[in-house]
């Protein structure tokens, strides 16, 4: 067993002392991801190629307590890029921020420039139904549900990249949180994305999350203030009129306001900027794309070792064959994992530099993140083993392996554009990238992704090992 680890360590040492290999393993994906992240998300205010993402906004919300219509706030931000008049009770005067506000921005670009939101109401739905684009809903279902269904169908048809569905009771839910004794039922804003354009849908999700989380942050702070006020100065609270609180809420919930400073938390639970989204999406795909080469050429280096006679030298030593093969595989898997982890860390640093503050762009579900990295490592190593079993040598691998990797990269979204899921699901890169995307948004279920990564990896590894064992002779 000791020799297995000695061989694995040798693999790591030879790999990480090869400058050319390091360039391919780490520098290239890091540089590509960073450049794309900067160009598309961080520095290009007004110059970003990603702009005007078509979004359908369905608003079922009504004014809640204190007369604030949070649904309208969100709808207008997405459709007009501004706070609507009338969503704030009349006569409201908001205090000015102590610092220059960043605007209704996401990752350095105004929401209005980034998202082209359209109010998706009954009229809009009927228009699509009449045009035959969207089928008419069954009369058995409720009108609001029919509207949601039409919006989703429009997204599926590619008319919109995403549909943001603001539920009824959104405002009540927000303002009701200030009174713990009368908690309203929990509701959530749904973002339905086109799976064929996960990148843009992810951006929409990030923007919506950013706005809603700011509203929630403000809500909690106001709630805490009111609780303290009630405890210390019940007379003041009793004399206050609802209108004052409405004013307070309206100002606090303005995305441009800094009355409630919780948006300046040093660390975010989930990435919420375009740069972060892009870095995760492109970075993870790039990391997996380059890890494919590491996995493949790591295992196929067995042929190189045979050619250079280092394999025979090991085989003529008192070292069992299983230890040699096992050591090689452990070394390759460790190299791939190290590569992925190094890139994740490096891209986190890049993301934080772009954001100007520490930002955990990959999310905070460490267990799932670790499993995803491990799954990605197993999958790319498994593919490497399969190719080692199928291909006849390093020369053939150079050609076939590279072509296959590029194909998987294209399918899996490794080059900045994404194909429909029905196609991209054939690539292991997709399953890894999608898992990283979901974890970055903070509320994704990656069980299927993990199953696909581990399942495919183990299957390919098993077949490859069997073929390799049959064919390989020193």
């Amino acid at each position, binding site marked *: 067993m000791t020799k297995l680890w000695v061989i694995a360590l040798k693999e790591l040492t030879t790999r990480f002392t090869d400058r050319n290999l390091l360039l391919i393993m780490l520098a290239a994906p890091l540089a590509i991801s960073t450049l794309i992240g900067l160009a598309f998300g961080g520095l290009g205010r007004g110059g970003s190629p990603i702009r005007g993402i078509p979004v359908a906004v369905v608003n079922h919300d009504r004014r809640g307590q204190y007369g604030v219509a949070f649904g309208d706030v969100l709808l207008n931000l997405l459709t007009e890029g501004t706070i609507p008049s009338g969503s704030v009770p009349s006569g409201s005067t908001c205090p000015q921020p102590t610092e220059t506000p960043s605007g209704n921005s996401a990752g350095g670009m105004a929401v209005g420039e980034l998202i082209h939101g359209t109010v998706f109401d009954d009229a809009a739905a009927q228009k699509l139904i009449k045009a035959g684009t969207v089928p008419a809903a069954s009369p058995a279902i409720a009108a609001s549900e029919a509207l949601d269904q039409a919006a989703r169908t429009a997204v599926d048809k590619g008319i919109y990249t995403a549909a943001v569905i603001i539920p009824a009771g959104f405002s009540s839910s927000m303002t009701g949180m200030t009174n713990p004794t009368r908690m309203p039922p929990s509701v959530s804003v749904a973002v339905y994305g086109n799976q064929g354009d996960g990148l843009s849908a992810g951006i929409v999700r990030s923007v919506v999350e950013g706005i809603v989380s700011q509203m929630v942050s403000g809500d909690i702070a106001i709630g805490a203030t009111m609780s303290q006020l009630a405890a210390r100065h019940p007379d003041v609270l009793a004399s206050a009129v609802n209108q004052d609180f409405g004013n307070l809420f309206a100002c606090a919930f303005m995305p441009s306001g800094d009355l409630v400073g919780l948006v300046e938390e040093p660390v975010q639970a989930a990435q919420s900027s375009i740069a972060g989204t892009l870095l995760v999406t492109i970075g993870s795909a790039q990391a997996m794309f380059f890890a494919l080469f590491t996995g493949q050429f790591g295992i196929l280096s067995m042929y190189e070792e045979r050619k250079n006679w280092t394999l025979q*030298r090991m085989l003529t030593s*008192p070292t069992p064959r299983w230890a040699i093969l096992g050591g090689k595989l452990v070394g390759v898997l460790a190299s791939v994992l190290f590569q992925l982890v190094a890139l994740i860390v490096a891209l986190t640093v890049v993301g934080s530099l772009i954001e100007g503050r520490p930002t955990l762009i990959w999310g905070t579900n460490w267990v799932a993140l670790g499993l995803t990295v491990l799954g990605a490592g197993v999958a790319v190593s498994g593919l490497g083993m399969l190719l080692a079993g199928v291909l006849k040598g390093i020369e053939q691998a150079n050609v076939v392996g590279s072509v296959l990797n590029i194909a998987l990269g294209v399918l899996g979204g490794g080059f900045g554009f994404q194909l429909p899921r029905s196609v991209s699901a054939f690539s292991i890169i997709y399953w890894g990238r999608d898992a990283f995307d979901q974890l970055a948004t903070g509320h994704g279920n990656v069980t299927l992704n993990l199953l696909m990564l581990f399942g495919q990896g183990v299957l390919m590894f098993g077949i490859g090992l069997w073929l390799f064992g049959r064919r390989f002779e020193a």
Partner: protein
Amino acid sequence: MDVMVETRDLAKTFSGDHGAQIEAVKGVNLEISKGEIFSLLGPNGAGKTTTISMISGLVEPTRGDAFIGGHSITREPLQAKRLLGVVPQEIALYPNLNARQNLEFFGRMYGLGGEDLAHRVDDALEFIELTDRQKERLSTYSGGMKRRVNIAAGLLHDPQVVYMDEPTVGIDPQSRRRILDTVKLLRDQRGMTVLYTTHLMEEAQELSDRVGIIDHGEIIALGNQGDLIQKVGEEDRLVFKVGDWTPGADLLERIQKQVEGVTDAAFDPAGADGQDRANTSGLLMITARRGRRALPAVLHLIEAAGTSIQSVEVHEPDLEAVFLKLTGRALRD
């Protein structure tokens, strides 16, 4: 004397195209004693590499077995391999690692570790005179230096048997001399058994206690140099370069019959038609007892046949002659 390497009916059959069976080695029996330098010679494709590969455990025999220090390579491979050191013809080292890292890695493959390994590596580096460059990547070394590290990696665990496959290929005469002296030292000072293969007959002559000649998968001659030379009759070889001219069969017959002492006359045409494609001239090869005495008569007959001779060489009996006589090919073929 103790037998360190033994093969018993060692055979290997490969499956060729269309299911054809190719018998590369046809039941080789060998015994190599402790402290002996044994050279295995054979033309390309004779079965030399397959035999050595079976002895060193790289290839599984189809039939028979090989023993190192009494351990069967098929049944007790790890015990047998512990006694064996291998110095391949190729520089079987990692170019990205330095000399020390390479030696440490291969030392660990033989179960060495800790201070023992560190001391052995220090000694080996001193022995090959690379202590001051031990931390430099192997890729920066000269061919001779790499070959010295290559040899040290095979000797680090102090094996009882060492197999050296053409260890002097591609290096300068000074490094070559040093390697040949090292091989003798291994035998004389450490009592190692050396299994040596080479294409250079003079190396085999200088080093070998015994020589085995293998051809078509069989050992066709085995013994010390004196035994083998005696076996082919201690005859001289006269080699005449005759350019593009091709002698008739009658001339060869006349030389053989009319010149006293001549036992064989053969012709090797120039270029692609000949045994050695690199030859730019046809070679008339005469085997004769007392070759120098037969020379004038042979010259007379050749010139009478109407050609001019470009050069003449007289070869005293040596391993090369033995090899040529037994295999019909030069060792470099």
